[in-house]
Each structure stands twice: as C-alpha cells, then as structure tokens.
C-alpha cells in the first residue's frame, strides 16, 4: 500500500493501517519587517511569527520568527540603510533553500512554512527591510496502530502588515502556513 497525505488544516488524523509511518511537521513561516521613511515620515511594518505545527503529542515544529530590524542591521549593514527589499525564504518543498535575491521586495516564498519578505521604499528614500524566518521542520518515524487518532495542529502563517499612509511602499509580507506530511513506510519494525 502506498499512502502519503499532506495535512494543510488542523484536524484529527486517524491511522488507517498498522505499520511504520514517517511524519514531517513544518511550522508556519514568519512575516517580514520593514522600516523606512516616505517623504520624511517614518513608518514601520512588522509581520508576525508563524505558528507551530504539531502531530499530537508525538512531535512538533515551531513557527518561524518574524523579521526584525537588528537582523537586517547585522547581516546587511555597511554604514548605510538602503535595503529596499528582501525576499521571502522558501519553505519545505520550495524551489530552493533561499528565496531569490533582488533589490525589489518580493513577497512570500514558496513551499510550506515559507517566510514573508518585505518592501521598503522606492528610490530617493531610505529604509531597512528584513525577511521573516521559515518554519522549523521536524521529522519522526513512528510505529502506529490502525485507528490511532492524532490531533494535527497546523501552524498559521505569520501575519504581514502594510504601514498605513506609506503609499504602499513600507510592507511586511506574510509567511505561509505550515503542514504535516504523513507517509506510510511499510509494516512494523
């Protein structure tokens, strides 16, 4: 028997068959962070952290933290703050480990638990933009009995925010929600 299910919304999962099961938990991705000035007025857009994903009492994966200013400063600072945008980082099953590079802000990465990027101003202004962090990924292999009911909690996507009044230029993009991938590996150990 081949069985693989991706759980994308919280629900009770019932084991359909005795055997060895591989469970992959992916936490929700964090939203981005953006801080800058538009026409000499300062704005902040702060995304939220992703939610944790849990396969009952067996295993859980925490959500990714939201972007924050000191992340950008420590990683990109060279004395000036011209980080116009940051890309969201791809999550599980995304195309690559990191989001694509670019000076223009790109929004949420692809894949479960991807993080949100951020956008900060057009030319002629200044600002700092930082992505959130993708959700954690945890894996476990279990020997389950048919009929076992497991509460599957799917981590929510970290929220995004658009700074009101910033003319759509100071934006923290949301993350992507987590998931649980359930795979049947075969009969018992």
């Amino acid at each position, binding site marked *: 028997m081949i069985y693989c299910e991706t759980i994308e919304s*919280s629900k*009770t999962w019932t084991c359909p068959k005795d055997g060895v099961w591989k469970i992959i938990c992916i936490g929700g991705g964090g939203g981005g962070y953006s801080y800058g000035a538009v026409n*000499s007025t300062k704005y902040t857009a702060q995304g939220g*952290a992703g939610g*944790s994903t849990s396969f*009952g009492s*067996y295993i859980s994966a*925490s959500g990714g933290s939201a972007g924050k200013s000191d992340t950008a400063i420590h990683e990109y600072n060279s004395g000036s703050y011209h980080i116009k945008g940051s890309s969201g980082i791809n999550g599980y099953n995304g195309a690559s480990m990191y989001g694509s590079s670019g000076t223009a802000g790109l929004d949420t990465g692809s894949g479960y638990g991807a993080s949100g990027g951020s956008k900060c101003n057009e030319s*002629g202004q200044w600002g700092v933009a930082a992505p959130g962090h993708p959700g954690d990924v945890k894996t476990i292999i279990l020997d389950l009995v048919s009929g076992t009911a497991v509460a599957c909690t799917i981590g929510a996507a970290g929220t995004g925010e658009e700074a009101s009044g910033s003319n759509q230029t100071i934006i923290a993009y949301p993350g992507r929600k987590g998931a649980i991938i359930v795979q049947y590996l075969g009969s018992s150990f």
Partner: protein
Amino acid sequence: MYAYIIDNKVRELIPDIDPVFPGLDITERYPSETISKFVHVEDDANVKCGMNYDHETGTFSEPDVPVISLDIDALKVDKVEESKTKLAEWLSENPMTYTDGKSYTATAEKQALLNSNLASYERAKAAGVPYPLKWNASGEECIEWEYDDLVALSLAIAAYVAPKVSEQQTLEITINACQTPEELDKININYA
C-alpha cells in the same frame, strides 16, 4: 492560554482548548518537549506575541524598540536623488505651452532628442545632404519645421526648464549642508 517561549520571547500564544479539538488537553496536542517551553498565563493577562520573558522572575515585558542610527551621508545621497527624481516627474507632468498655443514636452530626454535633431540637421547641411527637420507637440504627430523656428523652440524649452534646474541645484546645496537627519527631514522638495 499558554505562551510558547523561544529565545526568551513569546513566539506564540496557544489556547488551553483548541476548538478544532474540543475535548483534548494540551498534553494530547503537543509533545512534552514542546510543552516544557510553555508558560501558562490567564487569558486576560495582556501577554502578547513578541514580549520578552524573564525565566528567573517569571515576568513578561514589552519588547525593546530597536533604535536605528542613521548615516547622515547616505541620507543626503537619497535626498539629493529624491530632488532629481521629483524634478524629472515635474517636467514630465508639466509640458511647456509655446507661442503657437501647443504643449511641448520638456523632459531631459526630450530636450536631448531635440538638440540631437538640430545637430544632425546642421551636420547634414554642412555636408550638403538634405535632412528633413521634424518635431511634434505633445500628443501630436511630427511635422516639418524650419531650422530657425525649431531653434527658437529649443531655446524656449531651455528657458522654461532653467529655473527648475536652478531650484534643484539650490536644494542640493542645502541638503549637503545639513548636519543631522532632523535638518534633512525639514527640507520639503516641491517644484510646484
């Protein structure tokens, strides 16, 4: 509810009872290793995501507000760039009305094209080669112009643009004289 603490910060708030699993205790929804990082708080305890948590005292506090120090030289570069960008926008949005009653685009690109056109005519004339001199008003098709008339138009456009360019240059001097970000913030760039 439970505050999920990671790196001394509240990462997530988790309800005592999840409505998706109404009969299940927290211990049936999360592994013990994860629950060990939960701190139970009352629903009305005003604990929010992002708050700091002190494990020793068991108390929560508002997160630190990051202070971003500003590099004044970088800010000046951006402000000067802003003054040039806004000048270009103004010129694009405010064509010149000429003596013939028509509007003529006065952007830097259009001026360069016009001067190039005139220069090509002059070279062609010197070489004894015919060169049709054409130009267009905004929103109209190109028509043939006499050389002297088109020179007069180009000079009129240059005279129209000159005060705005001078304004931008004055702004640039003012911007570069600023000593603090607060002084820069007070400079309002408006060519209207």
